[in-house]
């Protein structure tokens, strides 16, 4: 057993436990986007950062991948962490505004503005689909390709995969295109965004009585500026 200190509380966990699991065990909330029970942690979204160590060597690490270590001091909600999370969410919102998951997270973190140029990308490259395909569906049909700006998810050589069984697991876990997979249950869909893939709430002028569960709505805040 390893004993570590999270937000001032000592906790004993088994070897191999991540900081995220230890923190959640104690009830400290940490937002995540690229993590899912049953899939190996990846550390791509950087939302789950926590602060470890002491001055002057304090640093932020992704709690979903960092293993618990004897005597480690962890803080899950310091000013530095919250500021970082807010910027991460602002960046996410700027690139992928139509995702309900991201909208909710942004709302929960009081994001009231979005200062970057608006983009409408679908994919945030969290890699959930890649891991789902490989680890749960045992298919390895899709993977990452390219790096930097050109990084994308696709099949080898971008041709139809022979190992893909079209199970839909990749769509099921996707936090960005969730709307698309609720189309069989239209009553659960928020806005039918799957039909046109444009974020309807951004174009509020054209849709007057938009149903929106966000309180307050991030997109509307942007529109006001």
């Amino acid at each position, binding site marked *: 057993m390893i004993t570590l200190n999270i937000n001032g509380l000592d906790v004993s966990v088994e070897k191999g436990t991540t900081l995220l699991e230890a923190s959640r065990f104690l009830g400290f909330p940490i937002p995540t986007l690229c993590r899912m029970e049953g899939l190996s942690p*990846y*550390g*791509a*979204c*950087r939302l789950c*950062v926590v602060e470890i160590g002491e001055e002057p060597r304090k*640093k*932020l*690490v*992704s709690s979903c*991948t*960092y*293993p618990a*270590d004897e005597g480690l001091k962890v803080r899950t909600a310091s000013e*530095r962490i919250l*500021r*970082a999370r807010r*910027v*991460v969410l602002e*960046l*996410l919102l*700027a*690139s992928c505004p139509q995702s309900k998951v991201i909208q909710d997270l942004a709302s929960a973190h009081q994001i009231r503005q979005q*200062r*970057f*140029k608006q983009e409408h990308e679908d994919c*945030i*490259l*969290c*890699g959930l689909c890649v891991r789902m395909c490989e680890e749960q569906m045992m298919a390895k049909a899709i*993977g*990452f390709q*390219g*790096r*930097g*700006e*050109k*990084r994308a998810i696709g099949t080898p050589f971008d041709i139809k995969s022979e190992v893909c069984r079209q199970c839909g697991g990749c769509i099921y876990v996707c936090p960005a295109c969730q709307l698309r997979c609720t189309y069989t249950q239209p009553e659960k869909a928020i806005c039918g965004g799957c039909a046109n893939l444009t974020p309807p709430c951004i174009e509020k002028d054209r849709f007057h009585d938009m149903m929106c569960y966000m309180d307050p709505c991030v997109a509307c805040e942007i529109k006001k500026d």
Partner: protein
Amino acid sequence: MQKLSSIYEFNALQQRLVADKDPNVPTIVIPAGTCGQASGANDLIRITKREILDKGLTDRVRLRVTGCHGFCEMEPSVLIKPDGIFYPNVNMDDMARIVNATAERRVLEDLLFEIPESKKRIEKQSDIPFYKSQNRSILSRNERVDPIRVFNYIESGGYSALIKVLFEGKPEWVVDEVKKSGLRGRGGAGFPTGLKWEFLAGQPNGNKKYLVCNADEGDPGAYMDRSVLEGNPHSIIEGMIIGAYATGATDGIFYVRNEYPLAIKHLIIALRQASDLGLLGDNILGTGLSFNIALVRGAGAFVCGEETALMRSIEGKMGEPRQRPPYPVQKGVNGMPTAINNVETWANVPLIISSGAEEYARIGTDGNSGTKIFSLVGKIRNTGLVEIPMGITIREIIEDIGGGPSDKKAVKAVQTGGPSGGCIPASMFDLTIDYDSLAKAGSIMGSGGMIVMDEGTCMVDVAKYFTAFLKDESCGKCFTCRKGTQRMHEILVDICDGKGKTSDIDLLEELALVVKDTTMCGLGQTASNPVLSTLRYFRDEYIEHIENLRCPAGVCKELITYSINEDCTGCLACLSMCPEKAITGEKKELHVIDAEKCIRCGACVSVCKYDAVDVR
């Protein structure tokens, strides 16, 4: 090549090689690394060979083709050993004369190095200001060794450190020596090498243990590692065998980027020679030590210089970093304990063993011992590789070794550490060069790139260039690194195009700090340095761009205008040069630039002899 089966046989071979050599015969040394070959060293070699054969000079003069010596500005150059006569920028037509003069032990005065100001000629290489202030313990070995001839290396004292270790040292003693020497990783982070070796040695024996030489040198404008790989591959191999003895490693891996074909060629030759001689393989020199080295070629990703990404790349996976811990020393290549060191670190190891740890630690400063090679490039007169003891100031490098700015413009800043480093302004040039003080100034030592910038360099443009590099070379795993560098670049492009907002500076700073904080690997954690350091020291330039829509250095095309002033003599030179026909005027009359047509290419500036074109 006969396989050597004992230390005794090796010593006999070395003694024979030394005895066979006549030290009085002058040797023409031609540096022909990639840089030398590009500037024409191959032609010089060809002419020299023909001249020696035609005139029958084989007994009176020798030729040695080596790797780069460092003074790239003066290449192709010729060095005459043992006298040390240095001929810079040798013309093909003069080469035959040099060969004949060398055979007759004459010096050709007219071809010697000339000091630009005093027109004084200097005969000896060691007296040239560029070389005088250096401490070339690694680079000077490039002059003595033909990289594809192992006997050359052995004759000049190579593999003696290995023999010393095998003969008298215990593994713990070697680790101790390296620890005492204070050698720190030359790849940039500066982790104590001895400590890393101790960790690796402490891992349970039995299974495989790996040593990796990180030769994935990707910084723009840096080529120190390439020169060592090309010029003296055996010194790195020797360092790795010593490392294997000290740590109990069983396998070595060279990870070389594929963009270095000559380095790869020399390494393959060197590895084969070392195996043929019995210096690699099973039961090395009959001592029971077994160590093999494989060569892995990188596929061109900058991020693969990061150790965890490098290991994945070796395993054949996509080069992307992973969380540390577990550190490579616990779980590295193929899950086995691994120690990764930079080319220069490995090349330092034989030096430490030969000279002794105390002697080595005397070079440099406390906590930063030894020498470091920098590639000095940019707006400086003497570009090239400089090897300096740690602890000298930036000013000494730029003024004494570099010879000051290449133009009339004053030096404004120096950028160290490649894309992950930062810019240090001229006012701080008294800063000493070591890992800690550079980090304090917001830059890093890095692998040793040093780019000099003068008044004609726009610092916003520099930050834009480096973020453009990083947004392409970030692996893209961490969202903040991938998107953060893209967004920083986007904001910087806006500022350079005159579309910046005052709030952009704060946004840029906030974003840069978050990228630094929240990313996983060294690339992301240092990706903001170019932005943060230019913001820290050159914020006024950013403000000038945003508020006055002016680029003080005259670089950002959207913010500058070209005009012709009263000094114009009406020579028509710019007029005929302008690709857009934007300049009008008659002979001996003042010319005028049509701002509408002008595409700000700068052709008129470069052609004008009278400084009559103003850039504002």
